[in-house]
């Protein structure tokens, strides 16, 4: 009943992409008959792209092309409710999620449903936080900015694409916390998405922007913005190879990974869960998958199966700790 008008045309899209995709060895027999990826948002957003990675990346391993179904509503809450009420054991469907979804689970935004109510199966890739200023800014390095913040935390307007307590806010909170400053005292300006925040940074309404690496690709090498640091554990590949990481600049704990991946219903059989996890693991080995990730603006962060499930639970725990420290939840 949740089938979208778009699903039928998404099949066409799947067919088209599968024609162009690298064919894998036949040895991976799959238990997935009617693969479906649920993007809990409208077409064109990050979840759409997450599903397209699965659609294109697994196309050679599923018996028929993967459908992409859009299920917007309640920032993903509608989808998680469905997978906890009627489709808890659906062996064919995976649901796209991001770190933002995990944060919502950690802070109880999805009501009664949390991270223990789904099974995390695999990643699509990752993105990382970045600290950005205007190209004319007086802050030439991250140290300049952080020193100014230490001198007077309230003097600098820091913007990001989400409200207080969102994953975008978390990036700023982690930065100021790494210098033992109080995130609640930050002069934080919430925007509706990164686009408006970048516009305000360009126009000088805010002095610093906590962005994502993926959305900054078109600004690297340009004369509009300066990326002071990326919040990844290690240096990124070109075109970001000249940008230092927060870690190497000595800001401990100021790392922010935006994970993109998939979960399934909690009562899904081990067989179906493993079939999906194995399919992803096999796909991670191919060059084709790496290219798809790159095309969709994601950086490699490949994990599937039980290992991934454990990793996600740790992440959610960590987010909950930070949220508690920041006074977002009791």
């Amino acid at each position: 009943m949740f089938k979208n008008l778009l699903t039928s045309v998404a099949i066409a899209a799947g067919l088209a992409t599968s024609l162009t995709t690298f064919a894998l060895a036949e040895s991976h027999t799959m238990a997935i008959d009617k693969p479906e990826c649920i993007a809990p948002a409208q077409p064109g957003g990050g979840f759409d792209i997450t599903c397209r990675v699965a659609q294109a990346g697994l196309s050679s391993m599923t018996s028929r092309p993967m459908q992409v179904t859009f299920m917007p509503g309640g920032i993903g809450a509608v989808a998680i409710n469905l997978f906890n009420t009627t489709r808890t054991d659906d062996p064919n469907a995976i649901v796209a999620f991001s770190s933002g979804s995990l944060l919502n689970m950690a802070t109880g935004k999805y009501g009664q449903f949390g991270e223990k109510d789904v099974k995390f199966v695999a990643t699509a890739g990752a993105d990382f936080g970045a600290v950005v200023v205007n190209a004319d800014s007086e802050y030439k390095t991250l140290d300049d900015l952080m020193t100014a913040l230490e001198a007077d935390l309230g003097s600098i307007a820091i913007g990001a694409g989400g409200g207080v307590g969102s994953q975008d806010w978390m990036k700023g909170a982690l930065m100021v916390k790494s210098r033992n400053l109080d995130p609640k005292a930050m002069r934080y300006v919430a925007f509706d998405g990164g686009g408006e925040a970048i516009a305000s940074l360009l126009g000088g309404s805010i002095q610093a922007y906590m962005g994502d690496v993926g959305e900054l690709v078109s600004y690297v090498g340009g004369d509009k913005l300066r990326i002071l640091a990326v919040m990844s554990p290690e240096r990124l590949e070109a075109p970001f190879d000249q940008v230092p990481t927060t870690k190497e600049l000595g800001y401990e704990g100021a790392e922010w990974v935006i994970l993109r991946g998939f979960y399934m219903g909690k009562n899904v059989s081990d067989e179906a869960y493993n079939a999906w996890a194995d399919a992803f693991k096999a796909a991670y080995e191919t060059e084709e998958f790496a290219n798809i990730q790159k095309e969709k603006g994601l950086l490699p962060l490949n994990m599937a199966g039980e290992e991934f499930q454990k990793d996600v639970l740790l992440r959610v725990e960590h987010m909950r700790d930070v949220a508690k420290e920041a006074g977002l939840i009791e």
Partner: protein
Amino acid sequence: MDLVFSGLAQGFAVALQPFNLFLVLAGCFAGTLIGALPGIGPINGVAILLPIAYGLGFPPESALILLAGIYYGAEYGGRISSILLNVPGDAGAVMTTLDGNPMAKNGEAGRALSISAVASFIGGTFAVVLMSLFGPLLSSYAVTFSPSDYVALMVFAFASLASLVGKNPVKTLLGALIGLMLASIGIDANTGVMRFTFGVPDLLAGIDFLVIVIGLFGMAELIHLVEQQAAGTLKALKVDKTFISMKDLAFCKWTIIRSSIIGFFIGILPGTGASVASAVAYGSEKRISDTEGTFGTGDPRGLAAPEAANNAAAGGAMVPMLTLGIPGSGTTAILLGALLLFNVTPGPLMFTQRPEIAWGLIASMYVGNLALLIINLPLVGLFARMLTIPQQYLTPLIAVLAFIGVYSVVSNPHDLYMIIGLGVFGWFLRKLQFSLAPVILGFVLGGLFEDNLRRALSISGGDWSILFTSIDSVVLYILAAIVVILPVWFGIRRRRAVKGATT
């Protein structure tokens, strides 16, 4: 400037390739038909066809030209259901109903459709020309428009709306207030606190614009029609063969020019789109031109103003999207998503890295605007005949289409219940002699007003004087004051001239 012309030449070379030319024409035509369906506007049109365009395996520039054609087509087509049926397809077309539908009811459907086609063409072309000549310059101005300036713009918009339904200011204000209240539902964008969601997860993200428009406007209109039919008071509309005349054009020319300018400048601001533009254009035009109180009863200028403005805004919204990668409206956000799906990153580097796409898209806008005028004028008579479909067939058909339209965008059955509930609510409001346009504008403007006010105060650390520091905002406050004071001036004259309800 040389760069612009060589770029345009390159763009036309792409856009005029037979295959791409075919796509822009096909897109415009399909878009017009999709937009003409009640309840389906540019956002759903593009969203529905995005996966198809993606799946056809065209080169990115061709697929984007097709999508852009559908976008302009749907923007044009949206007026058809607004004028003929009083059911707008999206928030930008709401103002079109105010004078467009009364014209159709007066037996001038053909004239209304052709006037709006010409106004749209002028507004759209004006925007494209300005965009190609001054795109980067305009976008560097647009980004300096700070949150506190948006607050001033919203104050101006509210002030010009007070003129909207001058007959009963109290009900207009109450209507706007209902809109503001509806806008506050959902997770607060600033603090992440849930407001008025009552634990319903489907309300977390707030109520979609489309749901409000279709519910309050479309469904309420349908219930009203059914009621009239049951009561036997429904008048059959005669087929009319009216068409735009040179006199109309002369009569509306200043309106169209003013509204194109207003629409374009509101369109290029990253935070505001066609809905704000058409509302402000209509409101200011009513202030400037409506000396006899004919606005709202089928005045061609009341139709030309929002039509020129919303098409100019649709073009203007492309400026920040193409030059900065920042979408200025819901539809450009989807087009932006489409660019990303095709691995094209919009932004300052797109014009140097992928000029064939950037300039091809711009050139296709020239072609598309012209194509739409050529496609649309001959079809006016055909569309006008839509009114001859007996109501007992037309009403359920509109209802079904509206449901499909909403579901295709939101894909959430909860919102179908919402449009029914809002429809009944809207029907009650109409019974109580409320005009629904202020409700919708309160909803559209209220969200923007709140977000930007809180952003401005976050930036200043709670100091309200930030609202009056920039020249842009001071100018807007002065304009708002003029707009409020003027009616007191003309008040007596206006009251004598007003006759008939404005719904």
